[in-house]
């Protein structure tokens, strides 16, 4: 007999399936040759199992490792980033398959499989990803179970179904541990993945930038308000303020020391206390944009750590967002910002490049003179946009060097950035401080959970104009051209045009009621997942525990875990018991068992598998005084339960015998207790 370890067949099968389940989502991210290596290794393993293959020699193994290292270096250039490290892990994981010989090796591969499954979360954290990884982990556990079952002949599915059962039973405890387990901030940050593209407005704006975004129906961020959702015309999500114009491009020209203390800032902006008293509070969950600016409604203030507040009341993070990011904002819709403008700031807000757009400059200056004051001038420009034949379109014509001139006096077709850019140009040309603001406008209300979805196609650009004493005021020139853009979404206004131009042919589909219902329903689930699972941090945990337990202390958490775990066990126990309760004992059996149990205290215990006559004999031997009655009981029991043919109705003597048995048992119990007392007193 061979004593060499053989990997159980079920274990190997489960392991191979689990391996591909675990590798599956990675293989799409990694170079094709990694998938090839995994498949070749699996086939090699199968050959080994059927006895036709050979185990690789040490030299061959070393060679394989070196070759894969070189291949990874060739593909990624370096080892010290997320993808190459994962590629290395997965390649070695696949190679380990052909090295597997002893039980220990199998265990190593199984534990590696768990690890590889978990690495998927470095890339994706969606609800389906979690479910998938859970499924993969169950398969890996199946391999582990099969390994421990050894060579016992079981159905191949036995181990996996056992593992699913285990997993299912573990869920309640997992949830409890998820809730109470201390959240530890990551010790290091995961390096960003290379392949992901930046989304949303970028740090500069040229004509056509925003209209490009309008074709995308990706989600930008979600907002949950503490109170009512403000009306659409108030939903201006400021992201970037552009001050510097070079004739073609608008740039932020933000100062490096962007973090401004709120207290310091109050001096430079005359905010009247009464207007500060009606704030709007909301939570924003940003999708990973790979950029560092955040979006908020005007005059935003946040307490969320790691969010910086810019001088123009814009918010940003230190590092680009590689993951979903959540922050709380308080906004004051009624505000007065920078009632007095410092000279440096005024110069910034009047900057214009020399030598561009002479016609526009002239037009602005003339109009300013005619208008009398700044306010009237702004209105005159807006009226100009409204009354002349300006067209709001997603497909504006290309513009040359004097882009503002060409737009204002030539093409007259443009998207929001054209209007915002030209408007600010006109303001500055006439000596009115103004700037371009980029961000999003509007949002789709999810009626199921009452939160706003802001998509890429909601991207927008508008202007802010400075009036003496009044400070910065929002002016949206697009509203003058296409007022409906502000009230509804760009879809409703330009949807037809977009689908005709095939910019986003699916945008119109999104508005079909059933699809819309499905999409919003699903988004609700996804949003809750993000809010309660992905962004469940120490703060939220403390808040939750505080609410549930009335305070966070060791004994409270201990009690919660114990009671929670106990409750789970209780449910399991009850379900097990209910299965037993279903089977009811025959009344004769009940009576008999009562008499048999009464002897336990006298040292005679009936085994479940002991026949009544055998037991009576034993009783007679151990307790002679009870012998006769025990034998009578056995006889009566036997006649009541065994002395008739199956299916036949019990005879007329049945009832009489039952009565006799009851009396006999009564008598027996009395005797037993008398005996017991006697033995006690003795």
């Amino acid at each position, binding site marked *: 007999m061979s004593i060499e370890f053989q990997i159980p067949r079920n274990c190997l099968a489960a392991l191979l399936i689990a391996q591909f389940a675990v590798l599956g989502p990675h293989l799409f991210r990694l170079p094709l040759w990694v998938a090839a290596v995994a498949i070749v290794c699996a086939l090699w393993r199968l050959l080994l199992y059927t006895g036709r293959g050979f185990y690789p020699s040490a030299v061959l193994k070393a060679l394989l490792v070196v070759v894969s290292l070189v291949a990874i270096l060739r593909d990624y250039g370096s080892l010290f980033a997320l993808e190459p490290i994962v590629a290395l892990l997965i390649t070695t994981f696949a190679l380990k398959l052909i090295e597997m010989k002893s039980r220990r090796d199998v265990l190593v591969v199984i534990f590696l499989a768990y690890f590889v499954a978990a690495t998927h979360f470095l890339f994706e954290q969606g609800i389906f990803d979690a479910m998938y990884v859970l499924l993969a982990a169950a398969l890996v556990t199946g391999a582990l179970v099969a390994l421990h079952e050894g060579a016992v002949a079981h159905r191949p599915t036995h181990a996996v179904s056992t593992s699913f059962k285990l997993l299912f039973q573990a869920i309640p405890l997992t949830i409890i541990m998820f809730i109470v387990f201390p959240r530890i901030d990551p010790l290091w940050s995961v390096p960003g993945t290379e392949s992901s593209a930046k989304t949303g407005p970028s740090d500069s704006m040229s004509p056509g930038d925003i209209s490009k975004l309008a074709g995308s129906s990706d989600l930008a961020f979600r907002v949950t308000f503490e109170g009512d959702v403000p009306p659409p015309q108030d939903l201006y999500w400021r992201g970037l303020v552009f001050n510097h114009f070079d004739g073609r491009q608008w740039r932020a020209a933000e100062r490096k020391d962007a973090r401004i203390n709120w207290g310091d800032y109050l001096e430079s902006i005359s905010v009247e206390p009464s207007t500060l008293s009606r704030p709007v509070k909301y939570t924003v969950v940003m999708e990973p944009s790979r950029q560092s600016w955040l979006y908020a409604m005007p005059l935003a203030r946040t307490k969320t750590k790691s969010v910086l507040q810019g001088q123009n009341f814009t918010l940003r993070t230190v590092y680009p967002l590689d993951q979903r990011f959540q922050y709380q904002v308080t906004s004051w819709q009624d505000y007065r910002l920078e009632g007095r403008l410092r000279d440096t700031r005024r110069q910034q807000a009047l900057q214009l490049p020399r030598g561009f757009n002479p016609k526009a400059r002239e037009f602005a200056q003339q109009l300013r003179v005619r208008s009398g004051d700044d306010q009237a001038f702004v209105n005159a420009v807006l009226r100009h946009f409204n009354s002349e034949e300006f067209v709001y379109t997603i497909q504006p014509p290309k513009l040359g060097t004097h882009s503002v001139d060409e737009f204002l006096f030539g093409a007259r077709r443009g998207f929001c950035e054209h209007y915002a850019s030209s408007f600010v140009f006109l303001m500055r040309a006439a000596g009115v401080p103004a700037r371009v603001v980029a961000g999003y406008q509007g949002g789709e209300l999810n009626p199921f959970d009452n939160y706003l979805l802001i998509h890429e196609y909601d991207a927008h650009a508008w202007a802010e104009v400075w009036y003496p004493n009044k400070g910065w005021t929002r002016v949206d020139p697009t509203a003058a051209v296409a007022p409906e853009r502000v009230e509804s979404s760009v879809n409703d206004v330009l949807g037809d045009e977009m689908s005709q131009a095939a910019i986003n042919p699916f945008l119109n589909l999104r508005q079909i009621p059933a699809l819309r219902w499905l999409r919003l329903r699903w988004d609700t689930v996804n949003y809750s997942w993000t809010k309660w699972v992905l962004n469940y941090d120490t703060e939220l945990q403390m808040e939750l525990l505080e609410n549930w337990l009335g305070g966070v202390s060791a004994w409270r958490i201990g009690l919660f875990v114990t009671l929670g775990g106990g409750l789970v066990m209780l449910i399991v126990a009850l379900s097990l018991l209910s299965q037993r309760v279903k089977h009811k004992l*025959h009344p004769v059996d009940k009576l008999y068992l009562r008499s048999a149990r009464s002897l336990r205290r006298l040292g005679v215990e009936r085994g*479940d598998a002991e026949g*009544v*006559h055998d037991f009576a004999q034993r009783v007679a031997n151990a307790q002679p005084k009870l012998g006769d009655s025990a034998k009578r009981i056995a006889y009566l029991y036997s006649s009541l*339960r065994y*002395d*008739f043919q199956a299916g036949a109705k019990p005879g007329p003597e049945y009832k009489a015998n039952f009565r006799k048995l009851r009396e006999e048992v009564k008598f027996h119990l009395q005797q037993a207790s008398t005996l017991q007392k006697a033995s006690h007193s003795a």
Partner: protein
Amino acid sequence: MALDSKINEAVDEIGKVLLGKERQIRLALCCLFAKGHLLIEDLPGMGKTTLSHALAFVLRLDYTRVQFTSDLLPADILGYSIYDKGSSQFQFHPGPVFTQVLLADEINRTTPKTQSALLEAMAEGQVTVEGETRPLQSPFFVIATQNPVTQSGTYPLPESQLDRFLMRIELGYPDPSAERQLYMGVDSKEELGKLQQKLSVDDLSSIVMTASAVKTSDALLDYLQRLVEYSRTAEEFAYGLSPRGALALLRSARTWALMEGRNHVVPEDVQAVLPAVCSHRFRAAAHFQGDSAALVHQLMHQVPVIA
């Protein structure tokens, strides 16, 4: 005289030559009364032949003994035809199988070919020789013996053939006092000759008749089904008891109840015959570290009588 007391007398009578083995004697009789064949598995010199001999004597049945060897051919058991010059015809010479009690000694020493020839006779109660089917005598019992230890050069009976035996019993060493009597006693051959007939063929058929009328209640069948179910689901068993096995168990339990003087079966009866009826029908699963006796023990002690 009541049947059960007649049976008791028979047991006592056999007990005269096979000392201290009352339980095995009763089981062997029970097997015959239930019209089943008996397999005795034990070391040489434990009284296998004596038991089978005594059984035949007490019932006054024809008795033949065949020593099975590796060169034994089917014809050696079944019989053969020889050309008779006088009548110019083939004359059938019946083999030793044409008897009432056939002792097949060391059945596992012969080839499967010969084994199966005997097994046809056991299952059908008839033999086919040279295309002609001849009925055997009635009653017809086979008492086979085999040596469990020396397995080299043997052809162990496969499960399907073991299944033809209603019971398999082991005799075991006698207890010291019985053995002492054995040493002091006279020649067992002589004793065998002195045995008296205690049961007639008529008695035998009335026992069979009465046994089939022994009552089996719902509660008892429930117990039987629990046993069967356990053997089929417990992990230690490679496979469970077949319906034929379960029927064999029930039939034996009925006969046992009759021998105990009862007109109905109680779980004790089932438990009494369970090891003999079932141990050769079980095989332990690969991971179970016990033999079939351990399985029977587990079955008997795990399945509740009242549930």
